């Protein structure tokens, strides 16, 4: 039969027919998986950003408008990553530089848990991440399932 990959076990060993077809299928699977993971990361990143903005204090005025979601990039460990945060500095190059001047404003606002806000709260990004951890994992799982050949 042509077009089908078959594995046959015989007394003298294992035979695989249509190896080219199998290889092509696996290549396509790898491409599809990469596309789906990138798509999933973008969706989760966007949702995380939207949820964290809802929790961001407004008493200082402009922080809500400073949220960002980076492009998907490959980190130092070789894994795909997406950065979600406030005050974009250095994300364009694939790394968030915590020493950048503007970040000094977002970090204290996020970390000062002893400060009360009329609207919003400290830990606005961390809380959103923690609340939606399971949904994000589920969503990524769904995307990976869609990539199956």
């Amino acid at each position, binding site marked *: 039969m042509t077009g089908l990959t078959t594995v046959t076990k015989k007394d003298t060993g294992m035979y695989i027919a249509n190896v080219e077809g199998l290889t092509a299928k696996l290549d396509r699977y790898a491409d599809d998986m990469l596309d789906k993971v990138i798509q999933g990361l973008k969706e989760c990143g966007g949702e995380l950003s939207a949820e964290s903005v809802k929790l961001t204090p407004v008493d200082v005025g402009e922080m809500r408008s400073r949220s960002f979601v980076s492009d998907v990039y490959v980190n130092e460990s070789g894994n795909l990553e997406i950065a979600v945060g406030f005050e974009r500095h250095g994300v364009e190059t694939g790394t968030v530089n915590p020493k950048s001047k503007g970040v000094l404003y977002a970090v204290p606002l996020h970390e000062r*848990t*002893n400060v009360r806000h009329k609207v919003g709260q400290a830990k606005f990004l961390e809380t959103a991440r923690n609340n939606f951890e399971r949904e994000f994992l589920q969503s990524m799982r769904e995307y990976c399932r869609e990539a199956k050949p």
Partner: protein
Amino acid sequence: MSVGDDMKTLLTTAGVTANKNYLDMSVQNAVAIMETGGFSPIKCHGGHATTVTFDRPSFQILVHNASKATANTVIDTIITALDNRANETINGHFYQSVRMSTPPYYLGLLQTGAGETNEYSINFVTQKNR
């Protein structure tokens, strides 16, 4: 007792005086353990009558000190006392892990009732039996 109480016990043993969920703004040098929620619990359904729940609370340590050098010493003591703990009973609660999730942040200078002070934040995550 909450995670804050348990961590306060460890800090007291290490010689660090800390308040739970309260940062004294009338003095320059203070340490506070702020309970910051955490991750949703893990439930393991081990049988028809048993469900084991692991809570995953997080907490934050806020350090105020007028001297940056002293603040660093206090931070080192706190990290040594709390980070990388595993499979340990603290105040009768069994913790699978206590670990630092973010290194110390310098949050800048802050005005207190007694004058200007340096503020630092360190975050921790835990996992414990309910």
